[in-house]
């Protein structure tokens, strides 16, 4: 009995330990991004982000001017009891816990005395966010006190554009899908089976198939680059799944409730708005989260329909543009990426329950 309990304990330790490691592995990429977004540009480019954690590293204790000591850089020199040539000092000469390193050129450089100590290069602030969010010129104060004026990346207006795209692109298709789902579930009309089969068939159609013709139509209607255009596109592409899921849900609502409402003389429209919509809130919520995350995170449709006009550019476009143009500007990329993630992550963590429910409903049927 005792050995069985011990085996159980070992097993539980093993399971929890492995899972904890996997979870940490999953989190590290995001933590790296988040930590870096608060670091200064120079720090990000010269030292790794995990340097903000306490670690042992060489820390400068004092700087010696070799000319004041009358040293000649062309011959071996003795500093702090260590004798070395200029070339050796350039790379750094170690002696136990001390290190000497020559900074600068042969004629004007200085010798730095470093010691190995516990340290953390935690110099965190919100400057990157200021620079990435503002649309106007931003004055950046460096750690050495100098000021630099740079053009802001205007993420705030990209975020607003994303909201302007995402909110109607979520509400409109769900509204249209809800009307259609009610029609399929509770009305009779010719060709109902055919039209519903069409909805099901279109569930898996890749949207690539639609892009060229839709772009041509939009060019004719002057809808390219407009919010209306992208709302329509997201509505069309999101409709099959939304209609299908809502149909399954509305269909399963208790028939008696609806029939008694009909007997009381309510019209379809009244029943739909007063009875079906309130009853469908859980389904509507999970579909809304799906669609919102999908639209917010979409890159392809925005790329093709909105393009890179700053008036309508969404966050994914803006971020991808920085990756392409200035892929080394990690202080902007990290803070920009985090700004683009903050809205979907908030939605996700607040409404996770509905999201998971929607996923399960979709998979059982699909």
């Amino acid at each position, binding site marked *: 009995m005792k050995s069985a309990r011990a085996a159980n304990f070992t097993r539980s330790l093993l*399971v*929890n330990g492995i*899972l904890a490691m*996997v979870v940490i592995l*999953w989190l590290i*990429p995001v933590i790296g*991004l988040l930590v870096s977004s608060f670091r200064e540009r120079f720090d990000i*480019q*010269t*030292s*790794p982000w995990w340097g903000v954690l306490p670690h042992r590293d060489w820390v400068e204790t004092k700087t010696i001017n070799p000319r004041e000591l009358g040293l000649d850089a062309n011959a071996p020199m003795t500093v702090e009891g260590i004798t070395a040539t200029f070339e050796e000092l350039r790379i750094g000469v170690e002696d136990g816990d001390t290190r000497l390193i020559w900074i600068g050129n042969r004629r004007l450089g200085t010798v730095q005395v470093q010691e190995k100590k516990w340290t953390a290069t935690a110099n965190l602030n919100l400057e990157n966010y200021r620079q990435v969010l503002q649309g106007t010129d931003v004055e950046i104060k460096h750690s050495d006190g100098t000021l630099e004026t740079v053009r802001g990346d205007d993420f705030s207006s990209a975020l*607003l*554009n994303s909201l*302007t795209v995402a*909110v*109607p692109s979520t*509400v409109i298709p769900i*509204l*249209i899908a809800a*009307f*259609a789902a009610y029609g*399929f579930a509770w*009305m009779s*009309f010719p060709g109902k*089976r055919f039209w519903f*089969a*069409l909805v099901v*068939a*279109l569930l*898996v*159609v890749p949207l*690539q*198939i*639609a*892009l060229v*013709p839709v772009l041509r*139509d939009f060019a004719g209607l002057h809808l390219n680059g*407009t*919010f209306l255009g992208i709302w329509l596109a997201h509505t*069309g592409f999101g*409709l*099959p799944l939304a209609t299908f899921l809502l149909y399954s849900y509305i269909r399963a609502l208790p028939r008696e409730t609806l029939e008694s409402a009909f007997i009381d*003389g309510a*019209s*379809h*429209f009244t029943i739909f708005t007063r009875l079906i919509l309130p009853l469908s809130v859980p389904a509507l919520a999970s579909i809304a989260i799906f669609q919102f995350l999908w639209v917010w*995170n*979409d*890159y*392809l449709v925005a790329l093709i329909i909105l393009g890179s006009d700053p*008036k309508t550019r969404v966050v994914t476009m803006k971020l991808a543009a920085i*990756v392409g143009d200035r892929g080394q500007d*990690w202080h902007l990329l*990290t803070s*920009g*990426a985090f700004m683009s*993630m903050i809205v*979907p992550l908030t939605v996700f963590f607040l409404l996770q329950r509905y999201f998971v429910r929607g996923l399960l409903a979709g*998979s059982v049927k*699909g």
Partner: protein
Amino acid sequence: MATPQQTAKRQQPAGNPIARILRFGLTVLILLIAFYGLYLGFLFLREGDRPKWFMALAAIVWGVGGVALLYYLFNSLVELLPVKWTTRLQPLVFVGPGIALLIWFLALPALRTLYISLFGRNGPPTLPLTLLLSAPGEYFAALSTQFVGWNNYIAVFTDRLMLGALRNNILFWIGIATPLTVISGLLIAVLADRSNFERAAKSIIFMPMAISFVGASVIWNFIYEVNAPGSPQIGLLNAVVVALGGQPHGWTNYTAISPWNNLFLVIIVVWLQTGFAMVLLSAAIKGIPEEILEAARVDGATEIQLFFRIMIPYLMATIIAVTTTIIIFTLKIFDVVWVMTGGQFGTDVIATQFYRQSFINRNSGFGSAIAIILLVAVTPVMVYNLRRLRDQEAFR
């Protein structure tokens, strides 16, 4: 039992026919005013010379409110008609807009793309339809100058870049990314089921699902970042490699190991999608009756045997569903590849080729043929879904 049709009579407004016609006319008038108002709103939004937040708010009110208003007005109009017409036309008000959008944005484009794919660079020439009626011979002669038949499809399967893209989609995205995602999702689901912090762990594994592919590309670009050998590596992967005595590389553009540099893109998608597989499989695991597992344990089955002999067969339906969903998803993979490498260094996929051919090279015939290949690839799933729908309906 009362049907909607029988009871619909009650909702009809009482009153003489003239009053009804007047009300009908008024509703039509309101509808026209509404259309005009929405059109003015559209012009106002297209100008866009007000502060950004105001425009955003106005756009949202205009878009969402406009759709709701149109439904309301059209329905009022239909309800004012005689009962027979109300029952006939109301489905059109409810289902019509949805169907119309589906046809405009998905069904017709599929056919049009198929048509375009049979033509050369610029697609079929735009000819006035009247020409077809007045001089059909001339019409078809003009079409045939651009007609290339199956040539675009032959090109899809012979073009060097396209073959590379097909290889990557099949070998790396379907062959490696998909099973890796499903297997890691399954293992994590099983581990989480037996752990003491299931909810927190699942939440974190699932979290990347909320992140855009562009955002994820930035995150992983940072992990793969490379500095010159000798200077400190700020990318996590290269820091580990250098600490272990290796040479730092740019990984995704490391053409010396091509095509295996695709694996570094695969890792990103596995990181993003494992949560999806895990959530579905985890729900299925909860559905395995505890008695079966207990009985097997009493009979002396090891945990490994339990996993392979009982859990896997029990989860098979879910595993297939998840695998299918991820295969469909990886077939269309675009954002990650486009942002990380732009399809260079031998990492092209079908969707990046589609984008490049259709929108950069402006070769719409070739691009459309690629899109049709994608459609054909998902057709078995479509047929399966339709079969299931038919079976369900037959059951009723």
